[in-house]
């Protein structure tokens, strides 16, 4: 028996989430008294995974998969799980992870729990805690099938260094017919994406207009953060749709979320509740966001943000 972890990568480099799922998989394997096996498809240098406890890495190199294909990835994960006699498969909850995991579950006839936020509270019955009701609650979910698929929520466990002397094996899986083919990929380059960011700087209708976003971008740049916005801001066309966070937009699970001129409507909070530390800057002391925040400044964004940029620049240099 083994625990199989899928370490996702992009353009030949492991994603940050890969180190988190490996760290988590290692602990689950310990709980079950079994081994952890890590699968990498066109991934980076396996020794980066050893640093997080991946003692055995299975490498699949497949030129025809230069871009992600869910069906092919699901099939490779399933074939690896069969070959490694894995009864638990762990996948991250990124956009691609959520695409592939349900297909893996069917291929393995496994029960699947997505958005899991903690180690299993029990292995018999196998019980995991997962997010539900748009972050307003958790469900303690029992997976009752022999094989299990866990989708780990981002930043819920963290990456924990745990260096082992690992080994790497290559594996050539049989590819299915792809069914869906990628014709082009458009990515904003050189910007931190919301999914990868440790810090997200987000602004709302309180900014009055798109011309005022310069200071938000500057703040994001000082912090190495991604920029985001509330829904009306993207609906009004002030910012691109990809930046809209919330229940109907993107989920954010960053370490720090700074909300500027955002009221904190329940639908917005639903998408950002999973962030660890929340800072609110708002002129209205009664804005609902202050109830959800850890730190706040009641003040005008047009005064506070430029000061924050200056002081942070000085802080970063000291």
């Amino acid at each position, binding site marked *: 028996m083994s625990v199989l972890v899928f370490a996702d990568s992009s353009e030949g480099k492991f994603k940050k989430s890969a180190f988190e799922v490996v760290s988590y998989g290692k602990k689950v394997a310990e709980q079950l008294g079994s081994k952890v096996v890590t699968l990498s498809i066109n991934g980076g240098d396996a020794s980066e995974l050893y640093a997080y406890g991946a003692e055995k890495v299975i490498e699949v190199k497949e030129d025809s998969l230069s871009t992600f294909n869910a069906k092919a990835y699901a099939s490779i994960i399933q074939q690896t799980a069969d070959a490694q006699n894995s009864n638990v498969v762990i996948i991250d909850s990124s956009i691609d992870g959520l695409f*592939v*995991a349900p297909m893996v579950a*069917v291929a393995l006839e496994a029960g699947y729990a997505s958005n899991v936020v903690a180690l299993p509270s029990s292995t018999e019955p196998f019980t995991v805690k997962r997010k539900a009701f748009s972050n307003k609650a958790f469900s303690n979910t029992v997976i009752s099938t022999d094989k299990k698929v866990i989708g780990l929520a981002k930043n819920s466990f963290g990456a924990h260094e745990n260096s082992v002397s690992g080994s790497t094996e290559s594996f050539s899986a049989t590819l299915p017919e792809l069914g869906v083919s990628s014709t082009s990929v458009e990515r904003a380059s050189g910007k931190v994406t919301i999914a990868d960011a440790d810090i997200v700087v987000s602004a709302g209708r309180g900014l009055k207009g798109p011309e005022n976003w310069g200071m938000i971008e500057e703040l994001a740049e000082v912090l190495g953060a991604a920029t985001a916005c509330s829904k009306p801001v993207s609906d009004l066309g002030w910012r691109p749709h990809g930046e809209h966070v919330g229940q109907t937009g993107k989920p954010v699970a960053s370490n720090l979320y700074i909300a500027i001129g955002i009221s904190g409507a329940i639908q917005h909070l639903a998408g950002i509740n999973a962030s660890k530390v929340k800072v609110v800057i708002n002129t209205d002391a009664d804005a609902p966001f202050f109830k959800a925040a850890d730190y706040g400044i009641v003040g005008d964004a047009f005064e506070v943000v430029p000061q924050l940029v200056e002081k942070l620049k000085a802080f970063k240099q000291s």
Partner: protein
Amino acid sequence: MKILVCISHVPDTTSKINFTDNDTKFDTNGVQFVINPYDEFSLTRAMWFKEKQGATVTVVNVGNATTEPTLRKALAIGADDAIRVNAEATDGLFVAKQLAEIVKNGGFDLVLAGRESIDYNGGMVPGMLASLLDFNFVNGCVGMEVEGTNASLSREIDGGEESLSTSLPLVVAGQKGIVEEKDLRIPNMRGIMMARKKPLNVVEPVGVDAATSTQSFEKPAPKGAVKLVDNVDDLINLLHTEAKVI
């Protein structure tokens, strides 16, 4: 084209979330239920295909009788008929297997669903359904066209968008972008009157075991009060020394 749209019946986005029976059941008291917002985007796209390219649109829900008003609303928006699989929907794989039966028996070649439901947030049913049927599948779809049996779609990826091509039969899990929010439809009086006469067929579930179950629900620990500061120096200091995030 025969389109099936999967409709999840979920608490309205502003609902207070509470549990009963020792935190094992969702408390529906005073909760307004709606068509899952992601499914609504997909339903609207299906209506577009019906009106512009010619298609029949069936909506389906796995749920008990309390979900029927939600299906009637989908009919009022313009779906031709509705199916309710008479079973409690608590596990993704169970639901996907019920839907797979409906697709096989109904000969649907396009299945539209939502990226996730806002109650269990599983995001698992569409992908499972596609795999069970061996249909092509696109998740998180933000744009789609169908010509004959060819489909071109786009999906959201980290930091951008990917364009894809595939063919029917196909399962698509949509989100905002598959149609714009301003194009979502509110049922009008005529639609509501007509919906009353449209068929809503109830079928019994096929016998499959659930793969997962909820043992209990819990709410996040109550948050401490916000720390208000009146200058940015204090804020930077707290973020550095106390929260340790910068």
